[in-house]
């Protein structure tokens, strides 16, 4: 037992938590930005898959994880374009569009993958590491935290910048007002259309990155339905976090912990049925929902298209 809890074990455990939490964190931050602007995107499961698939394919072709991530972001934006055009511009129902995006994303990526890669399932291999001199030498946490890929650090910086921007910039204030009371933004001389468009595009970038992170760094491969409900978990986390990105980060880590826990328990020697282990993250999410659902507050204008002067 004691040898099980060795340094390597803990190192692997922490690294797993992070690897599992990151895709969810990126997707939930993306969803947060959309929701803060008043757009409930139920399509992020599909958007993640599209981001994951494009990232996977491009990384295979170019051999560069960085270019793969970029492709994932672009894939996310393209997938979100449906929401942009049909909802923000034309005012159609967000729920319908969102579900359609999920279905299309699942369908397209599965078909393409099965057509192109089943004969020779491809793995992407090891991610490029960027050990931080000094820090990465710290025993146990060093290798877990400070031997991550540069992509990880870029994502963290991106999320923190967005957290700051949402709270402290005029862009952030406009975005939040678009979800609170779009008529106020309009009356103040802002553009609800432009604000929401920006939010949807940015949301596409982040969710796409989330998908790509999952394929490239977390699993190092792609398979149909790779996300397995992660997009919907991101929606739940977004609603529970009430637009606060730091809380999104924390809850995502709790999820990562739940996922990492299963294998860890097995290693320690608990014989837990594999099914239970698979269920663990979902159980944790359900528990979080039950405990915190009462305090979940969504922006008042969430889901409502805005038309100036309409009564």
């Amino acid at each position, binding site marked *: 037992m004691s040898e099980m809890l060795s340094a390597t074990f803990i190192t692997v455990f922490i690294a797993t938590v992070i690897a599992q939490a990151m895709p969810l964190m990126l997707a939930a931050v993306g969803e947060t930005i959309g929701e803060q602007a008043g757009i409930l995107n139920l399509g992020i499961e599909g958007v993640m898959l599209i981001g994951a698939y494009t990232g996977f394919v491009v990384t295979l072709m170019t051999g560069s994880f960085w270019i793969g991530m970029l492709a994932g972001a672009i894939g996310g934006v393209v997938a979100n374009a449906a929401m942009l055009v049909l909802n923000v511009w034309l005012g159609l129902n967000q729920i319908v569009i969102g579900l359609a995006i999920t279905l299309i994303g699942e369908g397209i990526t599965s078909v393409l993958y099965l057509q192109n890669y089943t004969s020779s399932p491809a793995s992407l291999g090891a991610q490029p590491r960027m050990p931080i001199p000094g820090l990465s030498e710290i025993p146990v946490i060093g290798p877990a935290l400070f031997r991550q890929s540069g992509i990880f650090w870029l994502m963290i910086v991106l999320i923190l910048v967005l957290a700051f921007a949402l709270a*402290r*910039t*005029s*862009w*952030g*204030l*406009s975005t*939040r*007002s678009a979800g*609170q*009371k779009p*008529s*106020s*933004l*309009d*009356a*103040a*001389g*802002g*553009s609800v259309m432009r604000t929401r468009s920006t939010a949807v595009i940015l949301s596409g970038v982040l969710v796409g990155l989330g998908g790509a992170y999952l394929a490239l760094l977390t699993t190092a491969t792609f398979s149909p339905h790779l996300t397995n409900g992660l997009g919907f978990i991101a929606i739940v986390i977004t609603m529970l976090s009430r637009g606060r990105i730091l809380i999104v980060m924390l809850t995502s880590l709790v999820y990562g912990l739940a996922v990492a826990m299963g294998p860890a328990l097995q290693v320690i020697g608990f014989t837990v049925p594999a099914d239970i282990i698979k269920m663990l993250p979902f159980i944790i999410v359900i528990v979080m929902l039950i405990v915190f659902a009462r305090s979940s507050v969504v922006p*008042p204008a969430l889901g409502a298209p805005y038309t*100036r*002067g309409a*009564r």
Partner: protein
Amino acid sequence: MTTTATSDVISLRGITKAFPGVVANDDVSLDIVPGQVHCLLGENGAGKSTLISILAGMQQPDSGTVSIGGTVVDISSPKVAVDNGIGVVHQHSTLVPAFTVLENLMLGDGGVLLDEKRATRRLEELAGLLGVEIDPHALASDLGLGQQQQVEIAKAMWKGSRLLVLDEPTSMLTPQAIEHLAESIARVKAEGLAVVLITHKLREAYAMGDCVTILRAGRNVGHISTEELATYSEQQAQDAILAAMFGEDIVAVGDEATELAGATEASRETAAIDFASRPVRLELRGASSRGAGRDVDVEDVSLTLREGEILGIAGIDGHGQNALSELVAGQRPASTGTLVFDGDDITRSGVRGRQRLGIRYVTDDRLHEGTVGSMSVAVNLVIKRIGEQPFWRSGRIQPKAVDAEAKRLIDEYGIRTPSPATRAGTLSGGNIQKILLARELTNGARLVVVNKPTYGLDLKTVHLVREILTDFAAQGGSVLLLSTDLDELIELSHRIQVISRGRLVGSVVNDGPGTAEKVGQYMTGAIEGTD
């Protein structure tokens, strides 16, 4: 970013705007002159707010032009209006409740980072100009209505405006807050800005306005110029305005015109009714409410309301009026105490059950709680009788019966709507209130709880509503009247109790000229106890 006033006249020429079924503005022309307060008056639905929306860029006119200092300006969006220094305080608040005062004010500012320092300075500057004090870090939803209004005015003037438009700013304010507002308006005017003020109260128009324009059914039907208004006595001004406002109808209103105008000191001839001998209709014994936490709950309230009696509840808005009315209507549970209606304990019965007993509630939240904006006027008029004959038969709605009832009520209450099938949300504020009143006061009501029944209504409708309430009481109905309008309370109530921080703090029998003063004293907490 200082307040820049120019001497440019803003001219509206031939503004026409039609909505499905109504012409809201019909060839309206008027001039708005800097350094003057231009009052805009007219019945509910006359088209005042529509005209303002056009100035604010929220609506596009079908034809007509707006020009500033002789140059035609196409106000194609609110941004153009803001850039041209047109600041508007809309009839319905545009503050974001979840934002702080500063955030609300900074919304729409350019730049990348929010500049709190600069915003705070600008707020101080404007607060000084308006003669008010505003806490920049308070949440908008935590402010009282008067303060919210001050923030809205500051917001309208944020970018240094040439024109300040106030759409019915006084309808929800206490007399003190109205006085404050009048002072602020005077200061803004002194800065050389033009002001447009919409109100239903002639007294205010006369006191604050330099000139007056009257709209009726979308048309400019009368203008009293600055010179004329200066020579008029208050009485003359009122007569002129009323004549223009109601045209022929004024005959029907007749002698009541002055009363209508709210000019006379409100009073009530109490034919000494001995209520003590009448049966008790509603009794609250030490009742406290348990709300969702967002607003003030009532605590330990005891009151008795008898048959045929109108009991007024006076108090500053937000002191538990909602809790009290919802407690009686059954929309909020009682945490302690009992409610007795016609001798039966109703503490545990639900909304529907109380409705069947004849308890009705006219909410003050017309737009959200009171009506379903996306449904027709007709359905809104019968919506509290869902499933009941003859409007529903075996679960199916009977459009003919609904329509007939709707037509009857529309006629009786003079609801101005293109047809019963029009979506309720498109009606003007005053007309939406008429829907609520018509719905609640019809069909076997025994007790009505009315919360601010006449705010935002035009003179004629105010008169109609008050008459309906008085008649209702005269026929044995009981009324619990919650209002912030002291004149209204004195005109209608037999007895007035004062609510403060969720408790009833005093009771005054409305039997003479001294009532207003006594109520006022309770409101300021000068005396305690009952007389």
